């Protein structure tokens, strides 16, 4: 199901080159409210580079990004965009000497959250982190760390959430709960989520639409079922293997 309405995020002919290497070859796509858009592709396909460009961490070589109609390349507009967006990745962590509660309080302030203390308490409750709330971050298990990262990602009630392999280090139980939570917030709050994962079952379950990236270009797009049919695969994993091994529809 593709969500309706105006896109919150629009990408037109976005390219990124590092000298002669083209990491992203002029991709275009949109992200709508209440939609989970999955970015799929083998390692080095350009997924993370796209996310980094959307976050303003990497500057595009050419092309256009509009988020909430604003241009993230302009400093003032970037500030406005980032206050309504959030991000988490399995490859980032939180300040390890601070307690979990202190970490969330710092980010609540960074995002200018009103009634920050109440918000932090609510997130701790919501992500079932009460027992470890006053423990230093360095003592948390990888599952608790992921929950903390997700709690941080929700601290400003974002309209757009970018998630880079958020369940990569989680056991199946916590990964399943995380997916269910994301599906719930997407439905209830019309949140738009851009998601990357190498877990094909997860991508099939969670994504409304998928963009299949290979060598920096989008080679296919559609719902998981459409892609499975187009590549004549048994499931998304089968499609992924065919694409990674250079088979085109």
């Amino acid at each position, binding site marked *: 199901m593709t969500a309706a309405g105006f896109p919150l995020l629009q990408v037109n002919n976005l390219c990124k080159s590092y000298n002669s290497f083209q990491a992203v070859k002029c991709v275009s796509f949109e992200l709508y409210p209440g939609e989970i858009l999955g970015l799929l592709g083998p390692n080095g396909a350009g997924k993370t580079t796209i996310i980094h460009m959307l976050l303003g*961490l*990497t*500057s595009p070589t050419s092309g256009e990004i509009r988020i909430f109609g604003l241009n993230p390349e302009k400093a003032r507009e970037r500030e406005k965009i980032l206050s309504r*967006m959030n991000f988490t*990745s399995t490859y*980032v*962590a*939180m*300040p390890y000497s601070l307690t979990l509660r202190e970490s969330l309080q710092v980010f609540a302030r960074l*995002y200018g959250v009103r009634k920050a203390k109440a918000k932090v308490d609510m997130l701790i409750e919501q992500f079932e982190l009460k027992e470890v709330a006053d423990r230093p971050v360095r003592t948390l298990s990888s599952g608790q760390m992921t929950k903390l990262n997700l709690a941080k990602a929700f601290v400003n009630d974002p309209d757009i959430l970018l998630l880079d392999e958020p369940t990569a280090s989680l056991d199946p139980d916590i990964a399943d709960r995380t997916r269910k939570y994301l599906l719930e917030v997407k439905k209830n709050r019309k949140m738009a989520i851009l998601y990357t994962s190498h877990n094909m079952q997860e991508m099939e379950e969670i994504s409304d639409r998928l963009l299949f990236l290979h060598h920096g270009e989008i080679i296919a797009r559609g719902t998981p079922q459409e892609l499975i049919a187009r590549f004549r695969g048994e499931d998304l994993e089968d499609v992924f293997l065919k694409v990674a091994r250079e088979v085109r529809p």
Partner: protein
Amino acid sequence: MKWHRITAMFLRHIYLYRHSLTRLVEIFYWPLLDLLVWGFVSIYISRLSAEGKNTPNFLGIFLGALILWDILFRSQQGISVSFLEEVWARNFLNLFVSPLTIGEYLLSMMLVSIFKVVVVFLTSALLAWVLYSFNLFILGISLLPFVLNLVILGWAIGIFTTALILRFGQQAEVLAWGVAFLFQPVSAVFYPVSVLPQFLQKLAMFIPASYVFEGMRAVIFGQGISLEHLARALFLNLIYLGLSLLFFFRMFKSVRAKGLLARMGE
């Protein structure tokens, strides 16, 4: 004990030095700086005894210099080590994908460095008084411009160092501990500028800290401070701070284009 395991670990570190210029340079860096600083201190003391002058207040000169030098060092570390803390904690990306601007980030680090300086300064001054009966506050009101100048120079060095770490990654993190000391021999911390060879004396004219330490000795010797020297130090400091900020913003733009900003945070 197995020889192959010992040589494996030996090789592991030799490989490290082969691929890291900063680590290689560091081996020679500290001994060279120590040699320069203590060499000039020795010349200073020998000259005084050869000239048959009265022994100056060495306790005041050295302790005062040490405490003031630490102000510069802590001020620089307040910027560059605080930055490294975020890199080590892998929290760097979380900060730079929040609405936090670079200007706000740098300003907050300056506040951290002021906090560090105040704590270190008060603790050192108290310890110097308790342990050695040296009262740093004999420097009187002149302490304020001395400290202010050293803090600003520390910021300039810290911002410059952080920009280099941003560009060259964690292999450049030794700079956070080393760059400030590069200025120590020509800052005339423990000896007057006149002890330095001519070409280093000329270089010292461009180092704001040299005016502060010369001023400190003048106050201890009861000669008063030169306002012109302090103004010159402040002028140089403001230029260096401006240049370091410009360098930082340029580097930030460059690492964004090269995709290094994101790589540093993961």
